[in-house]
């Protein structure tokens, strides 16, 4: 599975890691529903680090489509929330 961290790059993850990522994603979603910026930051950073450390960085000249795209690393809690309701992080 190919996962993109928006504004950063693509990583290829293996089957076992997908499940673990799914769990981290669920935690991030929960953190998004709260108002605790630090909790969101910590949860989301864990998720990003997981992808960076477990995934293989996709080369610049590989044309691969991502199965998943994670919001940019500097996403704030406010933006992450808007992600679920409004237009999302990509304008237009």
């Amino acid at each position, binding site marked *: 599975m190919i996962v993109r961290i928006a504004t950063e790059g693509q990583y290829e993850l293996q089957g076992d890691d997908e499940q673990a990522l799914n769990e981290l*994603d669920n935690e991030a979603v929960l953190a998004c529903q709260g108002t605790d910026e630090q909790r969101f930051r910590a949860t989301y950073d864990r998720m990003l680090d997981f992808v960076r450390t477990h995934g293989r960085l996709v080369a610049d000249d590989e*044309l691969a*489509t991502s199965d*998943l795209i*994670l*919001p940019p690393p500097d996403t704030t809690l406010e933006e992450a929330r808007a992600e679920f309701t409004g237009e999302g992080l*990509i304008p237009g």
Partner: protein
Amino acid sequence: MPGISGRMSTIVKAKISKLLDRAEDPSETLEYSYQKQIELLQNVKKGIADVVTSKKRLQLQEEQLKGQVVKLDTQARQALAAGQEDLARTALERKNVAQTELQSLDTQIAQLEQQQEQLTASEQKLRAKIEQFRSRKEVIKAQYSAAEAQVRISEAATGVGEEMADVGLAMQRALDKTENMKARAEAVQELEAAGTFEDLTQLGSGEDDIDRQLKQLSSSNEVDAELEKMKAELGSGSPPAAGELEAGASQPSASEGQAS
């Protein structure tokens, strides 16, 4: 996986298919995609140039402010040596404001530096993908039947399309931040234009609006402490530590150091 990433993926895919839908036949899709890619690459270059310009502007402002800090410090010492404590206090208050501005400028310049690096990396990555797309485009045009070509074009175009959407997002975020900084830089320029960091020799006698605002802005504790320190340095008994002092220091006067 419907979480954070699921939503983001959906948005990107919708954007890409919107882009691809504009062209009808396969080879048109290829050329249209390629043209869009080149356009975006130009935009990224412009975006980087904008960030560099903003950074240079802030750096220039930083230099000017540093000059003002030195000047106001010297003036405060001179005023104090001449027994004009009120004037010295005003100079220190202004210095305090200028120093606070300097700190925030430092942070902003560092942020812009980081954005510049990130955008440059994105540009290189996008360029590599576009190059890959270009060579694949020629192969597809030469070797495949219409039906097969459709599938392969879609794969290649989606791969680059995603990268384009991503670079677009990175640029948007960088520009948003730069805009915020511009607004801040303009506010500082207005302060400067209003004479906030002006030469004190041009200062009138009475307290004006700016002075009142300055007192609110600057931490009076810090100003008091600095004033006391300066007095001690200028006063009798203390060693002539103020080596950087210019005119004011060369004629120390014990009695003036204890004024008011």
